[in-house]
Every structure is written in C-alpha cells, then in structure tokens.
C-alpha cells in the first residue's frame, strides 16, 4: 500500500509540466546519441551535466536518467540499419539485427527491439520500486568498512569485465584513484598533487576527465578510419512483429529482462555485460543455434531487453547505497552532488519526492521512447545520413562548450584536451578508460571510508574481514582477482570482456 501511495506521489512530481519537458528532452537526446555512432550516453551526459544546474534537482536528474535509458533504445536503430553500434550495449544487436534488415525484415527487428525494451524497462522500474526501499533500509546499517569493501568489489568487477589484460585495467583503476585524490585532503585539508596550481585545489573536475577520455578520444580514434556506412535504403515497413515473431521472442524478452536486471544491479556490471550474456544464453537455449548470426529474431529481442532492464537495475546501488555501479551512474552521482544531494540509504526517506519522481518519470520516459522509436523511425534514419566529417567538429565544439560551462574556467578545457590526447594513446595501447573513471569517482569515497574504518577500529585490519558483508565483498573481489590466473576462467573472462568505452 505504501508503495502505491509513493508511486502516486512520484507521478505527481513527474507529471509536472517542467519535469515532463525535461524527461522528453532527456529521452530525445538519449535516442539521438544512441542513434549517432561516435557519441555515446557518457559523452552526452557529461556534456549536459552543467545544464542540470539551471533547474530543480528533480528536473536535472530526470533528464540525465532519460539520456541513459533513451540511448539504450536508440542504439539498436543504428545497429540494425547500419551495422554500427550506436553505443556499446548495442554491439550484439548488430549480429542478427543487421542480418534481419538485409533480408528485408528491418521493421520487425526495430519493432521487437522497441517492444522488448519497453517491456524490460517497465519490469525494471517495478522491480526498482519494490527492491530499492527494502535495500535502503538494510543499507542504513552499513558502516565505513562495508562501503569501502563494496567499492573495492565494484572496481574489481569492472576491471574483470574490461577488455584486455587485467593488470592494465587494475593499473587504470589505481590511476583513477590517484587522480580522484588530487586537491585538498577532506580530513586534514592538506593540498595533494596540486603542483602549486590554484585550479587544482578543488580537485580535477569529473566533466573534463570524462569528456576528454570518452568524447575527444573517441573522435580521435574515429578519424583514423574513414567511416563507411552501409545504410539499409529500403522503406521500413511492418514495424509490428508477426505472431510467429512474438512467439519466438517472448521467451528471450522474459529471460533477457530478468538476467539484465540482476546484472545491472551488480557493481561493475551494466547494460553491456547484460546484452552479451543474454545473447549467449539465447544461443545456448535455442534448438537451432545455427540461425544465430543469420537473422534470428531471438538474437535481437533478448539482448535489447537485457540492456534496458540493466539500465533500470543500475539505479539500485546508486539510489540505495550511494555507490555508482558504472561510469554512467557515476555521472548521475555527479548530478546529485551538484545539487547538494547525497544518494544513499537516506535519500528515499529524506527526499521521497525526488526518488519516486525519478522512478515515475522513467515509466513516462519509456512510453515516450516507444512513440519516438516506432512512428518516428524515419526521422532517425535521416539523421544517420549525417556524414561523420560534419558531425565530429560539432562534437568537439559541444564538448569544449560543455566543459567550459560546467565550471566557467578555461583551465578545464585544457584538462579535457589533455585527457583526450591521453585517452587516445591509452586506447591505442589497449588501456580501457572505464575503470579509471569509476575509480576517479569512487577514489575519494574509498579513501574516506578506509581512513574512517581504520580510525574506528584503532588500526585493526581484521575489521574488514570480520564484518560479514565487508568480508563477503572482499572475498568475492579476491576470487575475481585470482580467477584470470586460471586458464579455464581466463578464457571465460575473454568471452564476456566488454568495451565500455564505445
């Protein structure tokens, strides 16, 4: 009953005209960045982070959330029609989605992707409504040791799932922690690694780091190759899947939704892992696995549902524990912090309007996305024809403006350009930026909780092992650290490894 009252309150907030407008802007931009290859939700959200300053916290965060789940919808359009994933979570959709389009079945592929995403998004929201308050009440009992260990686990999971060698990913995570500690020490107020620059006293900004590593570096990488687009030119018809399509897709949508939701909750997990896992599961369960890769609708329905369910599930650790499970959620945490809010166990009780408003807006956003992605598909197809040589200078200009507007400081533009160049070389040498960014955000929190727990336990390191939740998290982290040393597990890791940067 309480949940229903809260949901009604949430809809009261989400249906305010200003919040509806921000929700629409969010899902529209999300679909746009999902459709356009070369710019992903991370770049778009960091670009628009300063815009959230102008409105209420509800409006800003509703918009940012809309960009995230909106990009999950939009990403499939590019994968199906152009065979280029609009964002990382849609990589798998290319395999069967584009084959379906080539066989003249682009309509059902786009249709099942949108309907599957809608069903998964709706399930994830209902689950979020039911799980988050319960988890938040448990999380109140968390102390600094639990928080520290959970963050360690989150970082280790992400490094485990990152493409390439694990030592490289762990090195990136360590560099992220160090960069996060630049500026005044929160306990002793001593400046650290500021090199005498006043601009660094408050630390390095999240926006220039993310825009550099993901936005500028991505453009640098893209300019290396002439991007060829094999756009399906036939008219897109029959967006409503047939009875046979529905029959074949119902199971994959259901399984993808549940799998995606739980993978989304896990620290370090997220939409990309979910889509890959769902594809592997469907292929394994199928009686005709040989159809996969040649236009099997299950290969579109499962992963597209999974990535949307994961996008919803990823809100749970952020809203209930204050721990972002992935880079996108780290940016959302930034939006909360900009407004002086701290997501965590007390958010739901202290700011019910904000929490339930965001959840309700996500439901409204899902309906908006269904309308944006089916009847308006023609508009997105036209956008795909925008050449990259015109698009990338615009991306560069918007990143410069986005970074400048976030702090009104030219120094941040320099920082972004520097991180763009560093990010380009990192990617060339096989170092993924995702662990660095997540560690950059978690670093100061990890340090704070580590120092607090050491002071509270009077220097007893066993406190991290003796407390059950903390002990379990550290044990899991240790298992994941050791796992790649075993050849059989190393192979499994290579299979699920992902490229978060795309």
């Amino acid at each position, binding site marked *: 009953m309480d949940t229903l009252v809260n949901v009604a309150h949430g809809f009261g907030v989400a249906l305010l005209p200003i919040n509806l407008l921000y929700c629409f802007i969010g899902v529209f931009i999300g679909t746009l960045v999902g459709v356009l290859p070369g710019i992903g939700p991370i770049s778009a959200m960091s670009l628009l982070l300063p815009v959230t300053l102008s409105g209420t916290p509800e409006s800003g965060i509703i918009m940012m959330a809309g960009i995230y789940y909106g990009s999950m919808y939009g990403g499939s359009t590019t994968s199906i029609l152009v065979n280029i994933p609009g964002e990382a979570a849609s990589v798998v959709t290319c395999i069967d989605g584009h084959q379906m389009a080539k066989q003249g079945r682009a309509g059902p592929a786009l249709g099942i992707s949108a309907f599957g995403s809608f069903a998964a998004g709706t399930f994830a929201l209902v689950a979020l409504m039911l799980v988050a308050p319960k988890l938040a009440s448990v999380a109140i009992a968390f102390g600094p040791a639990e928080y520290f260990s959970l963050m360690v686990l989150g970082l280790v999971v992400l490094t485990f799932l990152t493409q390439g060698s694990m030592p490289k990913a762990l090195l990136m995570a360590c560099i992220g922690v*160090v960069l996060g500690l630049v500026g005044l020490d929160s306990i002793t107020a001593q400046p650290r690694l500021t090199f005498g620059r006043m601009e660094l006293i408050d630390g390095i900004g999240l926006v220039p780091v993310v825009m550099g590593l993901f936005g500028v570096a991505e453009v640098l990488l893209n300019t290396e190759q002439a991007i060829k687009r094999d756009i399906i030119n036939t008219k897109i018809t029959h967006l409503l899947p047939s009875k046979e399509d529905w029959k074949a897709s119902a199971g994959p949508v259901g399984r993808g939704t549940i799998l995606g939701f739980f993978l989304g909750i896990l620290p370090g997990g997220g939409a990309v892992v979910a889509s890959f896992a769902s594809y592997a599961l469907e292929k394994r369960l199928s009686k005709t696995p040989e159809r996969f890769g040649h236009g099997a609708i299950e290969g579109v329905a499962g992963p597209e549902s999974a990535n949307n369910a994961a996008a919803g599930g990823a809100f749970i650790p952020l809203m209930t524990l204050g721990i972002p499970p992935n880079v996108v959620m780290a940016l959302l945490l930034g939006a909360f912090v900009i407004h002086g809010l701290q997501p965590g166990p007390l958010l739901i009780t202290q700011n019910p309007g904000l929490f339930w408003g965001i959840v309700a807006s996500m439901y409204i956003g899902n309906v908006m996305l269904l309308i944006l992605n089916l009847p308006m598909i023609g508009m997105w197809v036209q956008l795909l024809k925008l050449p990259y040589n015109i698009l990338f200078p615009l991306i560069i200009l918007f990143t410069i403006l986005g970074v400048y507007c976030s702090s009104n400081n030219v120094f941040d533009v320099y920082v972004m350009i520097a991180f763009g160049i560093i990010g380009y070389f990192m990617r060339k*040498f096989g170092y993924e930026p995702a662990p660095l960014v997540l560690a950059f955000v978690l670093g100061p929190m990890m340090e704070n909780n580590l120092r607090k727990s050491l002071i509270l336990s009077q220097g007893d*390191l066993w406190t991290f092992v003796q407390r059950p939740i903390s002990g379990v998290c550290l044990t899991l982290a240790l298992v994941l650290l050791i796992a790649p040393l075993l050849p059989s597990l190393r192979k499994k890791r290579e299979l699920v490894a992902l490229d978060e940067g795309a």
Partner: protein
Amino acid sequence: MNNDTPVKLRLNNSELWGGLIGLALGGFVIWSGLKLRLGTINDPGSGYVLFYTGILMCVFAGAIIVSAITEGGPTLASRWENVRWSKPLLLIACLTAFAFALEPLGFLLSSIPLMLLLLRLIDPVRWTLAIPIAVLVPSGMWWVLKRLLLIQLPSGLFGIG
C-alpha cells in the same frame, strides 16, 4: 622482423613501454605519498592511500612488464598500421593550437578557425558548406549561451564575444 610479429626483448615492444610508464607513475605516486606524510595505521595521514596505491601501481606495471618480456607484444609502429595516423595527429595539433589561442583570442576568434580547420583538414567538406558551418555554429552557440543562458564565454584581448 615484421611489425605484426610479437616482439619480446626489444625496445619497440609497445607493451613494455606501457608498463614502464606505469612503473614511473607508480614511483612518483609513492614518492608523493611519502612526502605528504603517511601517518599511522590508527590515524592514516594525507599520503597513506596515495603511498599504497603507488605500490599497487608498481605491482600491476611490473606484471605488464613481465608479460611484455615473456609473451611479447606488438611493436609501436604496428599500433598505427593500416590507419590514417596523420588525421588524429592533425586533430591533436588543432586542439593544442586552440587551447593556446582560447584565452588571448576569446571563444569566437578561436573556435571559428578551429571549426574551419577540422572541417577542411580531416575529411574535407566543400568550402561552400564548411564556411557557413564554421561561422554559424560557434556564433549561434555563443549567442544562445551569452544571451539566453547568460554564460560569459572568454572574450580575449580584443574583447570580441
């Protein structure tokens, strides 16, 4: 030796260089941690976490170096094989020049040439399209930010913008 062949004990093994840079960074972080005061385990100081993170960095960089020596790795040149390496280089040069010009020239006078260079140098867009985009987009953005959102962009020594 072909550039694609993994190289082990050679200086152009790119994995080795990556590890060495990581090791140097780790060393610097350890030194910074020590300089900032480690404190005790009961009362960790400002350099405590930095120091131990630096040690971890050295360990992971060491693992990368060992793997580069035992398993080999691609050469530096092979990382840029079969790609248009000059294009990102040009883009980096344009961005660096822009960074130097932004404060003295201001947003408009630095971003219009930047846009024109990017539109013409990488994958050339025809002049009749490049010039309007290069002029109108930064000017439009400047107008929206300055007039509608009241955000002051750098105006430079000439006070333009």
